[in-house]
């Protein structure tokens, strides 16, 4: 177990290096003048400003040296300084609680609704609940979620006044409910379909027959044996879904004015604030990788056949 965790962490290093490298290269090395990009595209850059920016961001150095500077800074917890001279780590510190609240709520909705609907569909395979879940999931996948979010905002917030229109003034959970529901629409259809397929597969497995033959009650067989085993691929998907979820916060937090990490990226993009975008993206990638490690460690807990070593 310990050696498995160690190996997984070692495997994360090249991936993390690769991702930060791509992000860094994208922002600082692609066509376009980095000094102008750092100063903002609409600013007139005086020679003195240009020199100061070059000095500060080590732009005179070769690209790999620049990347090395950024990386060592990152390892010391230094995410750089944004265009308004605020440390990016301060922006992150101020905005992560909002994103965590939103993400956790979305994740819970995804897990409960996705697994519940998929389980229901599998137990009633080929009948009305099954067809409703399958049809409904196609429909939800077909409508882009940011459009659903806008419509929900207009109908539930502006017209009906049932929920806050935007912002976090009403606190958790009220302000986060509609945004989390809209964001969960990204994951629920896929999780429901996967749960359905997985449960259907396990219903016919030998260990289910064994459990039934031992005289266990139907509900105990379904929950302890079928559902538990069926959750393995679902948990894995919940992990990979986190990537989409974190991406989704950019649009959802932007639409609902929740001042989280995604909202900061949304704003920084519009203000062409490179350092903030790079810093927060790097953090999101790191979180994604760590969560997926934890998810993989959960496999062994769910399915006793899987041994991690």
């Amino acid at each position, binding site marked *: 177990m310990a050696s498995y965790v160690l190996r997984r962490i070692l495997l994360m290093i*090249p*991936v*993390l290096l*690769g*991702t930060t490298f*791509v*992000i860094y290269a*994208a*922002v600082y090395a*692609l*066509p*376009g003048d980095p000094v102008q*990009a750092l100063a903002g595209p609409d600013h007139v850059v005086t020679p003195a400003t240009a020199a100061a920016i070059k000095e500060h961001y080590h732009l005179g150095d070769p690209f790999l040296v620049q990347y090395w500077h950024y990386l060592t800074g990152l390892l010391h917890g230094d995410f750089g300084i944004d265009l308004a001279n605020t440390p990016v780590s301060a922006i992150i510190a101020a905005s992560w609680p909002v994103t965590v609240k939103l993400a956790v709520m979305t994740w819970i909705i995804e897990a409960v609704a996705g697994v519940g609907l998929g389980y229901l569909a599998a137990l009633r395979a080929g009948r009305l609940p099954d067809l409703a879940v399958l049809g409904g999931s*196609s*429909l939800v*996948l*077909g*409508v*882009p979620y*940011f*459009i659903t979010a*806008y*419509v929900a905002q*207009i109908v539930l917030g*502006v017209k009906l006044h049932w929920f806050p229109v935007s912002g976090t003034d009403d606190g958790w959970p009220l302000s986060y409910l509609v945004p989390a529901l809209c964001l969960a629409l990204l994951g629920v259809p896929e999780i429901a379909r996967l749960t359905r397929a997985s449960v259907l597969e396990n219903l016919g497995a030998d260990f289910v027959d064994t459990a039934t033959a031992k005289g266990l009650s139907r509900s105990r067989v379904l929950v302890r044996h079928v559902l538990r085993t069926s959750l393995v691929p679902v948990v894995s998907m919940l992990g*990979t879904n986190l*990537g*989409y979820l*974190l*991406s*989704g916060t*950019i*649009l959802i937090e*932007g639409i609902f004015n929740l001042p989280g990490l995604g909202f900061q*990226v*949304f704003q920084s*993009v*519009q203000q*062409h604030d*490179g350092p903030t*975008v*790079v810093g*927060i*993206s790097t953090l*999101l*990638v790191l979180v*994604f*990788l760590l969560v997926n490690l934890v998810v993989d460690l959960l496999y062994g807990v769910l399915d006793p056949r899987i041994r991690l070593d």
Partner: protein
Amino acid sequence: MTSALQPATPAAPAVAAVPGAAGPSRRVERGTLHRLARRPRFFLPLAVVVLLCAMAAVPSAFAGWFGHGDPHRCSLEHSGQGPTSGHPFGFDVQGCDLYSNVVHGARDSLGIGLLTTALTLVVAVVLGSLAGYFGGVTDMVISRLMDVFFGFPMLVGMIVVLETFSVHSILSVSLVLALFSWPVLTRIMRSSVLATRGLDYVTAARELGAGPLRILLRHVIPNAIMPVAVLTSITVGGVITAEASLTFIGVGLSAPAISWGVQLNSAQQYFTVHPGLLLFPALFLSLAVLSFVLLGDCLRDAFDPRLR
């Protein structure tokens, strides 16, 4: 596994049936296509897709149905007005006819969807085949590269790259979208090739002295491409959504371009007063994505034997 792969042999029909994916239709599996053609689940989305493609190809033929049909003939006195005769969707903030704008918006959205999917498909088939067939170092390099791109929250990566581009054209947006969407299909292609390369007829071809290129092109790829090909239509739907999201937050296409994303982006400030500005582009966008996804679902169910 062998039995599961046999129905996948005629790879061409799925490619031919998916709009936009170019592929030589060698041998058409009559049975499956005939069965499909009688299902409303298949031909309804297909009809919408064909209609939208026609709209994208010759927008002027559709734009003039009700009024003048010129998206650029605008007058500010009509700014934000609701539907009137000759202008069924009303006017946008600049006083341009919204209906003809929405019709003309089909071209950029579908163009990016089809171009990106074609690019993704090519990369997935090439890299997936190489990784799956040769294994070893090739596989390790390609797989780690996939991990890097899987590690990204996709939208964040696309924003970062697009932000640094000065020109946001159909081509540049498609390239960026393809850059972040290839790993999904590549991974599927790789595992499909892995399953195919050990089959007897591949071994037989190798024993007969066929080189790796010939084996890949004639024996492995045609038999392994099915799981990827059936995902083409769903991918188009996903790409159209992604493009609209990017344009919507302001890093995709921008104003002089006419696209649904641009229209949604400019509707952001006005939708509480003029909900039509948001509603009509959103309706067309959803219709397009929904049709591609439903069509893809249906194709996947019909052609991917593993999901039966």
